[in-house]
């Protein structure tokens, strides 16, 4: 329990660091030196020092947005087994709660954006409401496969202790599909290239960034921290999936986990450097790929794995 809480605190505090790795990788590809690895902490400190300007159009919903989005991101992390350790909380069906809590945070993010009466934010909100629908279906498809394999409906049953290894032993080939599928979900849910471009300069083409245009100061800080945590959540799952080994040495598992995390973040950075974002109407097809992969993986298990 104590270890789980320490890991949870580690996750929240390390999330900004790992996100900076993406920037470093992108800078490397662009032949630049890039910002320091602690850049996100500097940004957060700067934001928390500032005051705020609120639009006259906004209401309480605008202020609730950042609170709920950070609150749900760190709640979700409590249910996640980090580095193969047990999660702080876990119960049968926690997956559904996790996915719907993320839905709650989406609702409030969109509501906060709609609160500003800005056409750009409305546009971003419409897109934000759309793509995650397919992501959710794909995520459920993945958990259907996991349920079929383990008979359990909680993250701990898949990602803590030897469970991930057991998954590999049961159905290694479908899991390869799942990793790709989950990576696509990670990119879409966290507004990365090629679904969205966090570094674009034109508001018309943004999804997530445009929704927080009007937030400033500590409010923006909360949102940023929330999105770092969200990316960290997905990356932790993939890290565990690609390096599920437990070497019998307590520290070593943690090192492996960090290695996996670094791999995921670097992969995100590489993808961001080498491909352009898709046109808006091509994004759904991209996201549907993840659903198709997960579906295919599940069908394979039907025939070959009893």
């Amino acid at each position: 329990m104590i270890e789980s809480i320490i890991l949870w605190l580690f996750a929240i505090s390390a999330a900004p660091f790992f996100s900076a790795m993406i920037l470093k990788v992108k800078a490397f590809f662009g032949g630049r030196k890039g910002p320091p690895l602690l850049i996100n902490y500097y940004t957060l400190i700067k934001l928390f020092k500032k005051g705020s300007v609120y639009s006259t159009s906004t209401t309480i919903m605008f202020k609730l947005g950042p609170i709920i989005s950070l609150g749900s991101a760190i709640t979700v992390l409590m249910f996640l087994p980090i580095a193969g350790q047990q999660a702080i909380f876990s119960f049968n069906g926690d997956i559904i709660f996790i996915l719907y809590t993320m839905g709650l945070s989406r609702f409030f993010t969109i509501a906060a954006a709609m609160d500003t009466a800005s056409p750009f934010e409305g546009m971003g909100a419409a897109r934000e409401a759309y793509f995650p629908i397919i992501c959710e279906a794909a995520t459920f498809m993945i958990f259907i496969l996991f349920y079929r394999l383990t008979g359990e409906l909680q993250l701990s049953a898949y990602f803590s202790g030897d469970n991930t290894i057991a998954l590999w032993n049961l159905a290694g080939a479908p899991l390869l599909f799942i990793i790709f599928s989950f990576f696509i979900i990670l990119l879409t849910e966290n507004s990365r290239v090629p679904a969205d471009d966090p570094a674009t300069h034109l508001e018309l083409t943004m999804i997530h960034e445009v929704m927080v245009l009007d937030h400033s100061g500590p409010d923006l800080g909360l949102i940023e921290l929330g999105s770092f945590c969200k990316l960290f959540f997905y990356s932790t799952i993939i890290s565990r999936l690609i390096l599920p080994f437990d070497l019998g040495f307590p520290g070593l598992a943690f090192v492996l986990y960090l290695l996996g995390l670094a791999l995921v973040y670097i992969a995100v950075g590489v993808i961001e450097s080498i491909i352009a974002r898709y046109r808006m109407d091509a994004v759904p097809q991209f996201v549907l790929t993840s659903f198709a992969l997960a579906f295919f993986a599940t069908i394979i298990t039907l025939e070959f794995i009893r």
Partner: protein
Amino acid sequence: MGQFFISILIILFGGFFSLILVRKAKFAKIITVFLLSIGCLSGLMDAVLNLIQPGIAGASFKYLNVFFLAFRMDGLSGFFLVVIFAVCLLATLYSFHYMEHSGNDVRTAVNYFFFSILIASMALVVTAANMITFMLFWEIMSLSSFFLVIYKHHKAESRKAGYLYFVFSHVGAMFIFVAFGIVYGYTGSFGFDAMGSLPETAKILVFIFSFVGFGSKAGVFPFHVWLPHAHPAAPSHISAVMSGVMIKIGIYGIIKMYVLLNFHTPIFGNIVIVAGVVSGILGVVYALGQHDLKRLLAYHSVENIGIILIGLGIGMIGVSSKNPLMAVLGFTGGLFHVLNHSIFKSLLFMGAGMVLHKTGTRSIDALGGLIKKMKITGITFIIGSLAICGLPPFNGFVGEFFIYIGGFKGIALENSVFAASIFAIVSLAVIGGLALACFTKVVGVVFQGEPRTKAAVDVDEKGPTMLISMSILAGACILIGIFPQMIIWMPIKAVSALGLGYNPIDFESILQMTANITLAATIFLITLLPVIAIRWFFYRGKIIRRSGTWGCGFTQPTVKMQYTGSSYASFILDFFRPVAPLDEDHPKITGRFPLKTYYKSQVNDIAELNMKRVVVNPVLFLFDKLRWIQQGDIHLYIGYILLAIILLLVFI
């Protein structure tokens, strides 16, 4: 059942008084609302007591010789009675101020009269113990609600809605008659209990006919066409009752038939799941495309009926595949969603009623920024929206949670069950996502941003009873969402009364699930505290300014530039174009300085489009050919009747 009948009598008296005291309108309304509330309250207490101490109470009245009336109250009817009386109580309360400036005392009195009959007939339908009683009150229920729909009968739109509803409810009733006719043909009795002895093919036929009949009342796709027309036409408290309660009587019928037929085949479960998925997804897609607030909510009823059916379907498959936990979870989830939907949907309709009352428009794109002037309405509406999207920690989540877990139980079973379960789970996820998109649209466009037209500028919220009803419902959404164990015993009692071969129910494991939901909701709420504290800490003593919204460099924004509901939804609707064809109308923009232009769009319901082509036109054609039968001569008609009787005597 004494108290039950007394409650019904009080309710009927209430309606009766509103008619005879029509000249003293104000006094009549106080008396009526008082009596209706007392009746509902007493009925509610009786129903709850009946659920707590499960027992089967019955009564029969043999005035009509063969066609005697019989009533019985068991767990299932007790559960539905709770829903009926609770929502009607709050709707009555709400109506007190809603009907204040209706401008026409006679119409108000008639409205209350039929409202009381509707409440009474719904309560009597769910307690009916034979086919005669059931059909009698079923028809009274349909007719009384028909009169409520044509409340604004001077408007062509209302008359059309009423007509459509009339046709649908009677074609639906015909299907139920056919089903009951088949049963009578085999058993020779009007009782419900003999249904179990039918041969299997007859059972399938009876189930399909009654599913169509009850489905048309419940609003199952493609029999839902009347619903988006009828619900907006009625006054808002009636919409709340119709959408929150009356369509659930159709669900009651489906469950009742399933139990009575006592035939545990996977066919039934699969039919129900497929119907549920189609209604669920298409309902929410059409809802997304609506511009009329109440029509949008009506389509959401189609969606939620879909979710309920998915739950029931999972339950039925659980029964047929002999998996007791899956069966219990599916039925419990479905019934729990019946209760939850009645709470948040009536809340949303009441909110929409308040908006309509104060702004005079139902058009979503004409509104905006209402939450600033209508705080209670706005906040309760947002709570209702969160609940209908199935988000924690609100009540919608709990029912869906049970349905999900039930569905996942099916994943571990053989391939046919596995396929149905995948279908159900993925559809539920998609429905949830679409509902979220739809309600962020409603909340964002109606309550947030800036007013788009003058109608939304000078508004207020008055009418204490309206605000009280909405606040109670919103409170219930949160309370049930955090502490589902307070209510969970009700659907459980109803499910155990079904007696589908899984008793005794593993109550412990279900309580464990509700405890988990409470735990999760508490964790979430507690987690918010430090976040709020951090926010407070960093804002201490800082300068906080207010200014216009950042227009990305554009300095002269107008309210017209806001994203509208239509544009918000268009992106998603594009994806569903094959099932939701979009009609657009706008002139081409020409020249350097284009003049005023307009844009109209309408999402077409394929059921409605095809109904005309597939059903209405052939029927009209056929009857056109038979026109010569009708000569207008009364003697000829008497001759027809005689001929028909003789023919029947010969053949039967």
